[in-house]
Each structure stands twice: as C-alpha cells, then as structure tokens.
C-alpha cells in the first residue's frame, strides 16, 4: 500500500505562494529566481520547516502556477461558459487540480493567471 502523501506545512505553503504569486517574476517559466533561490527564500522565511516540507510547498505552488495558466487560458476561450458561474467553475477546477489551499489563494492565483494569459 503506498504511503500517504505528507501533510503540507502551512507556513511553507504561504511563503511559497507569496513568492510565486505576489513577488514572482511570472509567468512560471521565468528563470529568475530559479528553484534553488526560491527554495532558499522559503527556508529563510519559515525556519522551523524541514527542507522536505519547503520543497514540497514549492512543488505544490509551482504546480498551481502551471495549472492556473491552463485554467485561465481555457476560461478566456469560454470553456467554462460565459456567465457569472464561469469563474466559480474555474476556481473549483483549480481546487480539484491543486487541493490544500484556501479560497483567498485560489482567487489570487486565478487573478494572477488572468494577467499572465492576457499577454
């Protein structure tokens, strides 16, 4: 039986989210800062988290940054409809793809993804 995935460290997730979605050089392909730099910044911010927890947090948030790009691209093409529900569908899809974050983070990620995909 496969081992259950480790429970994410909330503080490390917050730090990774802020780096990628509030302070990042967006979109996700950006080479600066690189993964090592990002990881060091998370570890500096959350000193009581283990290196594994920090790496896990970064991977989860980077996954979110890639998924949000796809979801926002599909939203723009009308894949979720064109009415008021379309955004709610996009947000719930994002949560399904990348579970474990809170509503504010999904909404922020969605807004940032809409900016990335505008260009």
């Amino acid at each position, binding site marked *: 039986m496969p081992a259950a995935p480790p429970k994410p460290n909330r503080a490390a997730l917050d730090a990774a989210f802020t780096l990628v979605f509030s302070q990042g050089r967006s979109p996700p392909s950006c080479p600066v800062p690189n993964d090592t730099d990002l990881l060091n910044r998370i570890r500096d911010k959350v000193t009581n988290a283990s290196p594994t927890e920090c790496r896990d947090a970064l991977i989860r948030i980077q996954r979110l940054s890639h998924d949000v790009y796809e979801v926002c691209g599909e939203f*723009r093409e009308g894949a979720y409809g064109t009415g008021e529900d379309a955004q709610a569908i996009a947000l719930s899809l994002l949560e399904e793809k990348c579970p474990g974050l809170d509503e504010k983070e999904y909404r922020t990620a969605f807004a940032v993804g809409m900016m990335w995909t*505008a*260009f």
Partner: protein
Amino acid sequence: MAQSPDSSSWNSKTACYAIIVILACIAVTCLVFAATCAGNSMPVPCRTDCPSGAPLIPVFTAPAEKIAAFKDPLFTRQLYAEAVTYEPLLGTQGTQVHMGFWSGKGNHGNMLRLLDAINEGPAALAVPPGRAIWDEGVNAYYNFPSYSQMMNEHWYERAAGVNGTVIVFGRAYTDPHTVTFAHADEIWGQYSARYTDMAEPIAQATGVPVKTWCFVQGAKANRVFYTYELPQLRLLEQKGAVEVYFAKTPDADWTKPEDWINGTANAPPPSG
C-alpha cells in the same frame, strides 16, 4: 561659575523646546515612513526595509479613466520621459536601443534572458552602447513608475472580485468601481500599445532605428501582442523607426541573425 536664575530658566525652556522638536521630528519621520510603506495614494512600491506587516494598499482607479489616459498619445511621451529619467542613454544620440516583446506561455522568461544578455553583456559597454528595455521597465530590474502604478491598481484581482469585494494580498477590500476582465485586458493592451509607440521618440532622440525582439511562438491572436503591439510595430516599421525580429526558437540568440525572422510582413501566424 554660578548660574543666574534667569539662565537656569532659559536652559529649562531650551531643553523643553528641544524635546518638542525631537518628538515632532520622530512623528514626521514615522508618518513619512508609514505612508511610503503603505503606498496610500502614491505609486510608491514598498521598500525592502519596510517592517513586515505594513500592507500595500491597492489604488482603486476608475477603469474608464485609465483607459482614456492610456489611449492618449501623450502617455507615450510620459512613458518615454520615465524611461529616460531612469536610463539617460535611451535618449542619447547614437545609442542602439532594443525593445522586447513577448506573448504566450514561456516567452516571458525567454525575453528576460535576451534583455539580460544585452544589458549585462558586451553590447552594454560597446561604443555607442546598447540598451534593452521592455514593457515593465528600463531593464529586468527597474520598472517604469507607470508600470508599478498599474500593478498597484490590481486590475485582474479587481476583475475577479465578487459583488464588489476584491481580494488583494489576501485582504478583502470594497472596490468603488466595477471592473471586468475586458477592462483589465484593454488597460494592459492600451498600455502595451503606448509602450510600443515609445520606439518613435527613442529613434528620434538616438538617430538609430530601434531593434525590436519578439518572442511570440505559440501566442494567441486575441492576446496583447497580436491585438495591440503588432499593429503599432507595423506602423513604426513603415516610418523607419523600428526593425522587427521574431524568434524562431525559445532560445534564440540576438547576436545570431539565423535565429530570427525579419520584418512584420513575415510575422509568424498566431496560434489558435
């Protein structure tokens, strides 16, 4: 020497005034520092030494006001003035200025690499020097104040708001204006068009056509590049203000002509 009673009283008053002045200075310093960190209505990004917990406050500009300002050709002059203030070589005779354009997934990073290669490579030290800018600022590190202002206006967070409540930096705010994704797209689009137009005053000042480098592989037709920037590039090319190059691959090297397609007439078709 013994002090007279008058002298003692004068010293007390002086000490009192000195304390008041010091306290007033501290209060003013605190207020200025708080205003700088909080942003308030000023487009001042938070400094890295601001104490943590001082939130940036979003600026709730009306979308119609912003669109009108960006449609005005005067905004190109403003952006040019900001650019030259940060990097005087952009307005100096002889400088070879490069402007970056990107669209589509992955291309932001590709553009950033080219920008750094010019600004931190031999071209930057050549005579005359080369300088590369993009829509965000005069290099990869220093943003145009107008760009920072737009970031502080959080157009996409505001468009994603529900019933007038928007989430910015994890905090809820009430937006006095209704903002849609169409507004946000047009604001960024008009900004990008005026950024493109900046090639003309730059070419006039330097006397050298601007080289424009476009990483647009996989870009869609209805996004900023094909909708707002390419039409302006075509006009500028006709005027002789720009030379336009399209990257053939994500790692195209600006020093290798074989890595590029020349001219807007040969622009790669958009994807989808």
